[in-house]
C-alpha cells in the first residue's frame, strides 16, 4: 500500500473518531445552540464507564451499552437541572458548562484516580489486515464503520421525525412552539440526553483506539469537535461528518510531512473556512 493511501485511510479513521465526538455536540451545540463545554467531559465519562463495565464483564458490547446509558443519564440530569433555564443565553451557558466540565472531570478522578488507565481492544477487533500488502488495524476499520452508521442513524432520525425542526424552531422561539401544542421542554431534554449519549458512545468507541484513558481526555478532544462543526456548517450533520474527515485527513498528512505546523492546522483551517465561507462548507447562509 502506498504511503499516501495509508495516510488517507488513517486520516479517515481519525476523522470518524472526531465525528463520533462531534455528532453529539452537533445536536447540542449545532441544533440547540448550547455552548456546551462539558461535552468532552461526558465523552470521557462514557469512556470510563464503558471501560469499567468492559473490564468487569469482559464484554465490549456491554461496555458500549453501559457507557452510552451513562452518558444519557448525565445528559438528562444536566439538561433538567442546569441547562434548561439558559437556552439562548450563551454567556450563562459558557460559565455553567465550564463548571460542569470541572465537576465531571474531577468526578472521574475521584472514582478512577488521576492516572492513565489502559483500554484494550476487544479480541475480535485486535490485529491488522493487509490492505495492498501493508498492515492496517482492524479496529480502525471498525471505527470508520461505526462512524458511518451513526451518521446514517442520526440523519434518518432527524429527517424522518419532526425533532430537527422542532429543535431549530424551539431555539428561536420556544414560546411559539409551545403555543403550537408541542412540549418543547421534553423535546429539548430528549435531544440533549441523546447528544450526551452519543458523546458517551463515542467515548467508548474511541477508548481502545486511544489505548488508554486519562481524565482530561475529553478536553483534549472537544476542541476538534467544535472545529469540525463550525467547518461543516453549524447544525449540519453531513457537514460535521465532512468536516471531521477533512480535518482527520489534513491533520494526518500534515503531522506526517510538516509536524511543525500540524498543531495549527485544524484551527488555521477553521479560520480560513470562516473567512472564506462563514456559514461553513455545507452550511447555508442565515
Amino acid at each position, binding site marked *: 500500500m502506498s504511503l499516501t493511501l495509508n495516510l488517507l485511510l488513517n486520516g479517515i479513521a481519525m476523522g470518524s473518531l472526531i465525528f463520533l465526538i462531534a455528532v453529539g455536540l452537533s445536536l447540542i451545540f449545532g441544533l440547540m445552540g448550547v455552548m456546551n463545554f462539558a461535552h468532552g467531559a461526558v465523552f470521557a465519562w462514557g469512556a470510563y464507564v464503558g471501560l469499567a463495565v468492559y473490564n468487569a464483564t469482559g464484554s465490549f458490547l456491554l461496555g458500549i451499552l453501559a457507557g452510552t446509558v451513562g452518558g444519557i443519564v448525565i445528559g438528562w440530569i444536566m439538561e433538567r437541572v442546569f441547562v434548561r433555564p*439558559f437556552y*439562548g443565553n450563551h454567556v*450563562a451557558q459558557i*460559565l455553567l458548562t465550564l*463548571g460542569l*466540565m470541572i465537576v465531571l472531570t474531577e468526578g472521574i478522578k*475521584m472514582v478512577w484516580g488521576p492516572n492513565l488507565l489502559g483500554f484494550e481492544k476487544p479480541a475480535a477487533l485486535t490485529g491488522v489486515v493487509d490492505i495492498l500488502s501493508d498492515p492496517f488495524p482492524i479496529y480502525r476499520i471498525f471505527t470508520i464503520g461505526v462512524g458511518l452508521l451513526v451518521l446514517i442513524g442520526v440523519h434518518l432520525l432527524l429527517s424522518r421525525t419532526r425533532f430537527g425542526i422542532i429543535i431549530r424552531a424551539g431555539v428561536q422561539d420556544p414560546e411559539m412552539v409551545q403555543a403550537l401544542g408541542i412540549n418543547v421542554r421534553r423535546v429539548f431534554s430528549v435531544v440533549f440526553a441523546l447528544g450526551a449519549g452519543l458523546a458517551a458512545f463515542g467515548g467508548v468507541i474511541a477508548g481502545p483506539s486511544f489505548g488508554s484513558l486519562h481524565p482530561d481526555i475529553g478536553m483534549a478532544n472537544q476542541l476538534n469537535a467544535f472545529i469540525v462543526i463550525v467547518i461543516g456548517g453549524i447544525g449540519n450533520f453531513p457537514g460535521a461528518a465532512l468536516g471531521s474527515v477533512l480535518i482527520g485527513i489534513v491533520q494526518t498528512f500534515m503531522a506526517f510531512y510538516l509536524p511543525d505546523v500540524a498543531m*495549527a492546522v485544524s484551527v488555521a483551517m477553521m479560520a480560513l473556512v*470562516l473567512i472564506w465561507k462563514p456559514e461553513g462548507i455545507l452550511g447555508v447562509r442565515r
Partner: protein
Amino acid sequence: MRTKLFNNNLLLGIMLVALCLVPFVSSSKFLLTMLISVFILAVYGMSYDLLLGYTGIVSFGHTIFFGLGAYSVGILLSKTKQPNMLWVAILIAVVGAAVISLIIGILSLRVKDVYFSMITLAFAELFYIVSSKWSTFTGGDDGIPYIRVPTFFNDRVKFYFVALAFLAVMYLLLRRVVHSPFGRTLQAIRENEQRVESLGYHVLRYKLASLMISGCVAAMSGGIWTVLQKYVNTSVFTLDRTIDALLMTIVGGVGTLFGAVLGAGVITFAHEWFSSLSTQYPLFERWLMFFGILYIVIVMFFPQGILGTIREKWINKGGSRNAASERKRSESVL
C-alpha cells in the same frame, strides 16, 4: 439611569479609600500580592467586558493581547537586562496590540456570533503555537525566568499602590468610554447591529475601535502581570487565560465594568481558599470540583452575575420599569 447606583462616585470613593488603607492595617505581603493580582486581572476583565458586555461580541482570543503585553515585557527586559525598558516594553505592547487587534478585527469582524468566537479562538491558538515553537525567543513552555523589573516594584507596598492606581485609572477611562456617545453606540450595536447601520453609523469601525481599545488595555494588564510574576511562559496564550477573562466578567456581571473587579476578586480568592483547604481537609482533596460548583451556583443564583443581579434586584425594588429580559420570557416556557 440604571448605571447610576453602581457608578456612584461616593461608593467607589469609599472603596478606594478602604483599599488604600489595606497596606497600613495588614502587614501580610501575601495579601498584598493577592490584591495586586486581583487589580491587574480586574483590568484585564474590564477590557473584556467592553467587548462582551458593551459591544456584544464574544471573543475567545482575548488572551492574545494579554499575552502580547506579558511577552513584550518579559522578552525585552530579559534580553536587554535593562529593567527601565519596562516602559518601552509596555509602549511596544500597546502599539502591538493596537496593530494586531486591527488586523484580527478586519479578518474576523465580518462574521458574527459563534463564528467570530471561533475565528478569534483560532488566532489565539496560532499565537500559542508560535510562542511554544519559537522557544529560543520565548522560552517555550519552560518560559523566561529571572525577569528583572525596576527595583521600585520589589517593594510590595509601592507595587500595591501602583496596581491600585492602574486599576482606578483604567476603570475611569473605560467608564468614560462606555458612557461616551461612542460607548452608547457600542451598546446599540450590541442590541441591533443592522439597525445601527441604518442610522448612519459605520458599524465595523466602531467594533474595530472597541476591539482595539480593549486589546490595548489588556496588553497593559499583561505587561504589568509579568512585572508581578517576573516570569512568563506560553500559558499567557492559552485558552485558559481567555476563559479567565470571560469568567471574571460573567461572575461579576456582564456589562457592568465594575463587575470584573468583583469577578477577579471572587475567582482569585476562591481559588486560593479552596486550594488551601485541600491541604487541610480531605474533603477538599478534589478542590477543583468546588470551584466548578461555584460557577454553577453563580449561574443558577446570580444569572446576571453578582453585580448585575444585585443591580437588577435593586432597580426592581425601585419600581422603575427597566427590568425583565428576553431570557426571562423564554425561561417561563423552558
